């Protein structure tokens, strides 16, 4: 038991240790990954900003020669002279945009009215609504701007430059689309990707997501709708957010996305670095990291923890078995020795090695058993002396009674010889009879003592207790129903399946007969004698119960003492003989009784006995005794 507990404690300790270490490692790993992700996100964001600025510079670099071109200058001059002649230039933006490889190019007048538009040629005459005052945007760096194209909108990097030097200003607004090519220009690590969401309203729209990887075979596994909660949150709170996109039930396919709001040009015309947070939220940059490496590492750590844990448990079992065996063996030896002592083997000793507490305990145990043995010897010696004394007392008592009449008779004979010789003969004959009678009495007394001392050893053979009890009941049936005395009923309560035991049937018969006779003596007014048989795991049990006068507690304690009797004419050897028989069979006899409520003698016999194997143990006491 203690070994199992020790084992469990060891295993639990190791498991908790491994789990704690694994958890700690996982937490540290997660922290390291998050830190790494933050660093890489910051690096990518910086790269995005650099690319943003580079593209912006490129747009400015292309827009400046457009603004300074002969065609544009001629247009500005012509419109300065005659503003209504704009119709002839409606296609100018398209041709210049083609020449300078710009996706977007518009010429607008000082009021913001479109003169020519490359991206929406039909939009001439309509106002360009992105600016309150174009003069403030002139000569600034490139900025984000949403461009409405037929049936859709596009996100682009734009710059504004004034054309010519005429009084009536004309501005060139040129730009390039912020599209997959832009994202493809970013130098991304293998497990990272960048997407751009074009904000076209307050709700997520799947077709507004620019994904450079779109069109690949994995598209079906990455539906853009998965971004909806993250995008909607950024649109709602207009701040940077992070979310995990779960593409499937496989956690290794998850991606962490950092959503960074992209603001456009503020109409108020503040100086911008391309990202004016007062401007409208035009798009969201999504930087995604694959969690595959993290999940794989986590999985490896988990597997390692399991392996270490499993190995630890095995080692714990082996180690704890060894330790427990080392620790518990002396304890178990002590427990076994204590059990043996309890069973009567007073000379039991345990091995005491070393100098630890368990060795001290073993030495103490050995000392205890030694002292117990010595005390037992002393007790036996005392009991033996007491028994001799009792025997001497009984002998003296028994012999004194016939000796006293013998002495008187002999003295009477001597007196009669001297005082009345004529009566001597008569006296002699009478005294001889008395002397003979007392001598016979003495012989009888000596015979009973002789008989008690000559109890034979049991000769064991299979005995069916139920048959034995039935035989006893049958033997005394006539006496139970004898005339001149109140009737006594005899009940047999026998176990149905009671295996035979090894016993001496004659001795057992004699013992049970003694108990039945005792019961009959206790029921002078009649009653019931019950003979029971039963068994448990290791014992066969016989009970003899009467409904007689019962015994006091003191009587119960002394009732098996030889020559003790509560009867007027008892010898006090009946029950000791019963006890002797039971003891010779390796069993024990107890008595349960209360005055006026009958007595029960319980005989417990081993189911498989070995001759001379056990000495009988006598336990006596009243049922309600303490």
């Amino acid at each position, binding site marked *: 038991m203690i070994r199992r507990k020790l084992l469990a404690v060891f295993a639990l300790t190791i498991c908790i240790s491994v789990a704690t270490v694994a958890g700690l490692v996982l937490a540290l790993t997660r922290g390291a990954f998050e830190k790494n992700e933050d660093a890489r996100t910051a690096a990518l964001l910086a790269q995005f900003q650099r690319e943003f600025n580079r593209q912006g510079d490129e747009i400015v670099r292309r827009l400046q020669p457009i603004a300074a071109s002969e065609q544009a200058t001629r247009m500005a001059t012509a419109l300065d002279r005659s503003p209504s002649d704009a*119709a002839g230039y409606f296609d100018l933006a398209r041709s210049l945009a083609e020449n300078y490889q710009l996706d977007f190019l518009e010429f607008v007048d000082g009021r913001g009215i479109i003169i020519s538009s490359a991206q*929406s040629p*039909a939009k*001439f005459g309509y106002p360009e609504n992105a600016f309150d005052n174009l003069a403030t945007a002139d000569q600034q760096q490139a900025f984000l701007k949403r461009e409405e194209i*037929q049936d859709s909108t596009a996100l682009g990097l734009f710059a504004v430059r004034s054309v010519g030097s005429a009084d009536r200003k004309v501005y060139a607004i040129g730009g390039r689309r912020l599209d997959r090519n832009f994202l493809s220009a970013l130098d991304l690590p293998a497990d990272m990707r960048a997407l751009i969401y074009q904000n076209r309203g307050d709700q997520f729209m799947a077709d507004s997501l620019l994904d450079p990887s779109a069109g690949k075979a994995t598209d079906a596994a990455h539906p853009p709708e998965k971004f909806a909660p993250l995008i909607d949150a950024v649109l709602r709170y207009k701040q940077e957010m992070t979310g995990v996109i779960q593409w499937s039930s496989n956690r290794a396919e998850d991606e962490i996305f950092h959503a960074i709001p992209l603001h456009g040009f503020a109409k108020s015309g503040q100086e911008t670095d391309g990202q004016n947070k007062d401007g409208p939220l035009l798009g969201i940059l999504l930087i995604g990291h694959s969690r595959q490496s993290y999940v794989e590492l986590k999985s490896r750590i988990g597997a390692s923890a399991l392996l270490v844990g499993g190995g630890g448990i095995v080692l714990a079992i082996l180690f704890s078995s060894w330790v427990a065996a080392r620790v518990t063996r002396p304890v178990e030896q002590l427990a076994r020795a204590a059990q043996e002592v309890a069973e009567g083997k007073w000379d039991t000793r345990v091995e005491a090695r070393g100098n630890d507490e368990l060795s001290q305990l073993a030495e103490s145990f050995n000392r205890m058993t030694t002292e117990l043995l010595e005390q037992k010897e002393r007790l036996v010696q005392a009991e033996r002396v007491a028994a001799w004394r009792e025997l001497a007392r009984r002998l003296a008592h028994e012999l004194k009674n016939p000796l006293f009449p013998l002495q008187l008779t002999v003295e009477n004979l001597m007196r009669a010889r001297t005082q009345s010789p004529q009566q001597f003969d008569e006296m002699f004959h009478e005294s001889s009879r008395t002397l003979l009678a007392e001598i016979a009495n003495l012989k009888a007394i000596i015979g009973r003592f002789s008989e008690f001392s000559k109890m034979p050893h049991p000769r064991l053979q299979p005995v069916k207790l139920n048959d034995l009890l039935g035989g006893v009941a049958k033997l005394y049936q006539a006496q139970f129903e004898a005339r001149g005395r109140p009737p006594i009923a005899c009940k047999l309560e026998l176990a149905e399946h009671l295996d035979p035991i090894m016993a001496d049937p004659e001795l057992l018969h004699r013992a049970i007969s003694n108990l039945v006779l005792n019961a009959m003596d206790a029921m002078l007014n009649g009653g019931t004698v019950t003979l029971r048989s039963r068994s448990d795991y290791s014992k066969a049990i016989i009970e003899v119960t009467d409904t007689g006068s019962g015994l006091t507690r003191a009587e119960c304690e002394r009732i098996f003492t030889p020559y003790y009797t509560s009867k007027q004419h008892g010898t006090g050897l009946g029950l000791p003989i019963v006890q002797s028989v039971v003891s010779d069979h390796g069993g024990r006899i107890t008595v349960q009784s209360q005055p006026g409520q009958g007595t029960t003698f319980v005989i417990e016999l081993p189911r498989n006995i070995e001759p001379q194997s056990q000495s009988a143990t006598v336990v006596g006491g009243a049922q309600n005794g303490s």
Partner: protein
Amino acid sequence: MKLFVWRCLAASSLLIAALAATAETRPQYGSTLRVAMHATPTSLDPADATQPDSFARRSLTMLTFDTLVTIDENGRLTSSLATSCQATEGNQHWQIRLRHGVKFHDGTPLTAEAVVASLRAANPSWKVSADGDSVIIELESADPELPAELALPRNAIVKRINGGQASGTGPFHVSDWQPGKKLILAAEEMYWRGRPFFDVIEIEMGKSERDQMIALESGRADLVELGAEQVHRVSLEGRRLASSSPVELLALVFAREVQSPDERLLRDALALSLDRGSIRSVLLQGAGQPAGGLLPTWISGYEFVFPVEADLPQARREREQAQNAAAWTLGYDSNDSLARLIAERITLNAKDAGLSLRLTPAATSDVRLMRIALTSVDPWIALANVAGAMGVAVTNRGGSVQGGSIEDLYAAEQAVLATQRVIPLVHLPASYAASPSLKNWTVRPDGSLNLADAWIGSGKP
């Protein structure tokens, strides 16, 4: 002596210069004319209804075939293969006398029977018969416009030979024909009007306007088509160009009848929102005329009475009156860049009025931007042609299909417009640009090219 020599030299120089100048202005036989066009006809048969009508096809037809009657440069009917057209019985019975001595390209003479066969193929509903050297046409109802009908290219006289080949009586015969790609015509030596000046005309088909201009500028083509929006720029570049009167209607045509009062209001709102002036002045670069009616003024004489100005407040009011305004799809020819631009402008105008139009290059749409070439200078024929393109029949107040006074014509056109199946936008001319060496070429009123009397000169104007 010296003086004499100098005088002789001067006189010789003047003589040579005068001869050279005379040679430049005088027609010259020979040479090859190279034409590029956008259309890709796969059949040259004028009566083949499967081929879409276009100015290019009309030009090809008139190069290889002749009609009984033709239209001169002033839009007047003149005789061609027919020497006379006489009507009796209230314009229901017509007798057409044929010109003598005309031969098909295969050498067979033009006969009344051949003409009857040709007209029957083009007009199955007509009752046509031969009467000696005349052709008799008996109509189910009176049609005073029959001569104009006969002047249509589709009624050109064709002799169909076994195997599907069509032989005509035109100034050129087919030398090589790669359907949809290339056509080489050779001068017909025995053409009844006299041999044309060109020996050969090579026609490249399926060329975009841009490619045509490049071909013209690089000298690989002598004559190309011009988009209306190109006319202004090409004229500024000093190139030689020619345009017809407006003979093409650019219009929005709805795919179905008006289904509800709301839809009527919405269609009206759309018509009122259109800024035709901007379309013409900017997108068409001043070419064409804003159209409020189906027929241009030069044909009908009254088109100016139809409003063409946008009325955005009224358009918005009518839009607001409509309870249900579904978004319409606006179809256009994806091969026509001008159509795309105009369609985009229309969506912007419509948006101003609160209407939603979504562009689609698909063949089916709620409303479509269409180019409808007017087939004839005759107003009734032209009106029937335009109305027919949108599935609307034209009748005059007397109940007849064609013919009638200008009031009848106006009423008939007004009736077509009242169906709200069509919103006219612009009337466009057919325009062409040519190299300076191409001389004496003209554009007929129906938009087709007249090259019968053209020749290649030295390049000087």
